[in-house]
């Protein structure tokens, strides 16, 4: 996917670089260019021979100069210098009487030769200089483009490996060679931790990469150290440390990099190193912040929870020790009460521990096990779990038979319902009814749990779902985790949950589960 994101600029860059190479300044002229030079001089000679009957010999020299210009604009400087000399010789041979000899009838012609040669050489020199400048401008431009592309790709990365991968991809396109970046693991370069899928380099060269990583100096093919290696290794030097090693193989056709490309490669390595270093320190900062938040959460959790854990434990211990030491003095009704409080408080403790475990599990990123369920079934099993608390309570259910199946994790959504219904029982008078109603809209299923309790204070709508937040109603005990768990679960299902004031008194909790997530 990533490779087809910006194909055109990549192709452009590599094409430009490839074109710029043959006419770069310092290239030795190939035999083709010399042949072309000879051909052009031959054509000039042909033209001069045709014009010879009509023009003075000195003017025929101009035809040759034109030929030299033609050579100079196309070929290397050495080819055009050769063409200059060849032109003077041909001019002498064909255009200066006596013809077809190098003899000269009038010594004046020697001045013509000298002038002609001088002009030809100057033309050669100037033309190739202009050409070299043009070529280096093209080079510079494509280099700038390549670096710009690299920095743009790097800026988008937030992970070390992604940054390295982006850099190696861009480098591969720009240099037309196989490029891999090796990243260290516990201070050692490992060929296993690399950006390319395939390893085209023998693992025997891991040592070279390690040396480059340790000493921060290039090595490998074309370098002083390890010149026999298959690849060239360049350290990725950040400001404070070396963050990896970039390896580049020769092109498939065996060509190695030119000096100016080496310069560009260094710039690449430098930018990549800085980007990786930035990502590393960003990650470290994130980690530190997360650690702080976790610490904070832990301490507030401890203070909130220790109280909630101790209270039921105190009742249990108290009741149990009373029963043990004074069993024979207690009337049966009191003994029953004490036993009941032990089992009630133990249940409460168990719920609290369950909530804490749920919250911890949800916060560490629980995996939803979703499938299609009738909402009726999930509501039903929640009510079944709450049977003891609901004894004698009027429940009114309104679940249309044609509700679509919902794509949920049944255990977790069941937990949401248990928490909401349990809340309703805690925050409303025992004789008041609790309503559960569901409704399908084209895009979602909405489920409401409504009670006739005292509701919540205006402005508490959002805070109710925060961890350890407890509603303002007095006399109700809880750790303030139930609704936070609900929100975490519903959000994991990409749904929403909200608290509403119920007309006529009480609270409504509305869950909205989008249907678009159905398989």
């Amino acid at each position, binding site marked *: 996917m990533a490779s087809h994101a910006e194909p055109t600029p990549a192709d452009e860059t590599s094409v430009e670089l490839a074109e710029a190479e043959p006419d770069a300044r310092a290239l030795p002229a190939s035999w083709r260019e010399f042949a072309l030079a000879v051909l052009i001089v031959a054509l000039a000679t042909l033209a001069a021979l045709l014009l010879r009957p009509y023009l003075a010999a000195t003017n025929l020299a101009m035809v040759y100069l034109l030929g030299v210009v033609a050579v100079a604009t196309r070929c290397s400087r050495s080819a055009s210098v050769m063409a200059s000399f060849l032109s003077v010789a041909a001019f002498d041979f064909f255009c200066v009487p006596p013809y077809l000899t190098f003899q000269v009838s009038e010594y004046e012609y020697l001045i013509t030769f000298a002038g002609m040669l001088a002009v030809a050489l100057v033309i050669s020199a100037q033309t190739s200089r202009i050409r070299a400048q043009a070529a280096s401008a093209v080079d510079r431009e494509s280099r700038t483009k390549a670096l710009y592309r690299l920095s743009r790709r790097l800026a988008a990365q937030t992970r070390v490996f992604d940054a390295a991968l982006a850099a190696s991809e861009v480098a591969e396109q720009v240099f037309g060679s196989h490029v891999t970046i090796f990243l260290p693991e516990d201070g050692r370069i490992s060929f296993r931790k690399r950006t390319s899928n395939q390893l085209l380099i023998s693992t025997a060269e891991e040592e070279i990469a390690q040396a480059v990583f340790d000493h921060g100096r290039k090595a490998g093919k074309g370098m002083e150290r390890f010149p026999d290696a298959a690849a060239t290794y360049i350290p990725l030097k950040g400001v404070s440390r070396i963050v990896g090693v970039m390896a580049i193989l020769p092109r498939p056709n065996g060509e190695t990099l030119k000096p100016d490309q080496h310069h560009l490669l260094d710039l690449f390595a430098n930018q990549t190193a800085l980007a990786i270093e930035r990502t590393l320190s960003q990650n470290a900062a994130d980690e530190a912040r997360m650690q702080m938040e976790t610490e904070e959460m832990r301490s507030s959790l401890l203070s909130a929870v220790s109280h909630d854990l101790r209270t039921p434990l105190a009742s249990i211990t108290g009741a149990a020790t009373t029963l043990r030491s004074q069993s024979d003095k207690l009337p049966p009704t009191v003994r029953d009460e004490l036993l009941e409080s032990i089992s009630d408080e*133990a*249940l409460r403790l*168990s719920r609290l521990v*369950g909530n804490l*475990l*749920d919250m911890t*599990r949800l916060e560490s990123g629980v995996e939803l*096990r979703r*499938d*299609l*369920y*009738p909402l*009726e*079934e*999930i*509501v*039903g*099993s929640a*009510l*079944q779990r709450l049977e003891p608390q609901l004894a004698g309570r009027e*429940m009114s*259910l309104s*679940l249309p*038979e044609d509700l679509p*199946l919902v794509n949920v994790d*049944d*255990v977790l959504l*069941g937990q949401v319902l248990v928490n909401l219904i349990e809340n309703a029982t805690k925050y409303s008078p025992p004789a008041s009814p609790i309503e559960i109603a569901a409704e399908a809209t084209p895009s979602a299923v909405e489920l409401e749990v409504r009670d006739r309790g005292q509701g919540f204070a205006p402005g508490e709508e959002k805070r109710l779902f925060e961890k350890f937040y407890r509603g303002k109603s007095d006399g109700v005990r809880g750790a303030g985790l139930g609704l936070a768990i609900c929100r975490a679960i519903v959000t994991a299902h990409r749904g929403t949950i909200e608290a509403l004031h119920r007309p006529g008194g009480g609270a409504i909790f509305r869950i909205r589960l989008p249907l678009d997530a159905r398989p």
Partner: protein
Amino acid sequence: MKPLILVIEDDPQIRRFLRATLAAEDYQFHEAVIASEGIAQAAARQPDLVLLDLGLPDRDGLDIIREIRSWSQMPIVVLSARGQEKDKIAALDLGADDYVAKPFAVGELLARIRAALRRAAPLAPDPADPIVRFGNVQADFEKRLITVGGQEVHLTPNEYKLLQVLIKHAGRVVTQRQLLNEVWGPQHTEQSQYLRVYVAQLRRKLEQDPARPRYLQTEPGVGYRLSFDR
């Protein structure tokens, strides 16, 4: 003869409370603290039922089920922690009969034990009375007649088969996979949403309030249980 129950559990407090409860209910009781001892006792004493804690210190409780099942069909009821549906299903699929989630009330534990013992020693079906009753539901499998409150209810063939399987396992949890396998066949064991739709239909036909089923209960994340004492 009092049924013999082997308890394999490492926590001394839970063993103590189980000992008291089971003795009061007229069961014989043997205990093992670690897995190896438990397996040895199961082989030596041939108990009528094994009550197995999944979180033993020396070996995975699932291993014990696998090992016992390799040579015996004795009922196994698992004690597991809440929120570990995966373990519950794994235990049931390995052949455990049922599970009780900790913390549990005694009544629930005893009901599971009774149902599991019944599976092992089914009452000889009374040829004169092939009728099963729960609530106001009456199922006559000889005449293929199901009535609710005296009124005949028409069940589709799959609903009928589903009810039959649930009644066969009455009182015990049946995993979705087991139900799909027994009703639709082994090649349909992944299509649990159909099963849920059929269960919902069956509830509408048999339960007074299908959203608050009294008999056909859901075990979230695990399966279903037809809850009644036969």
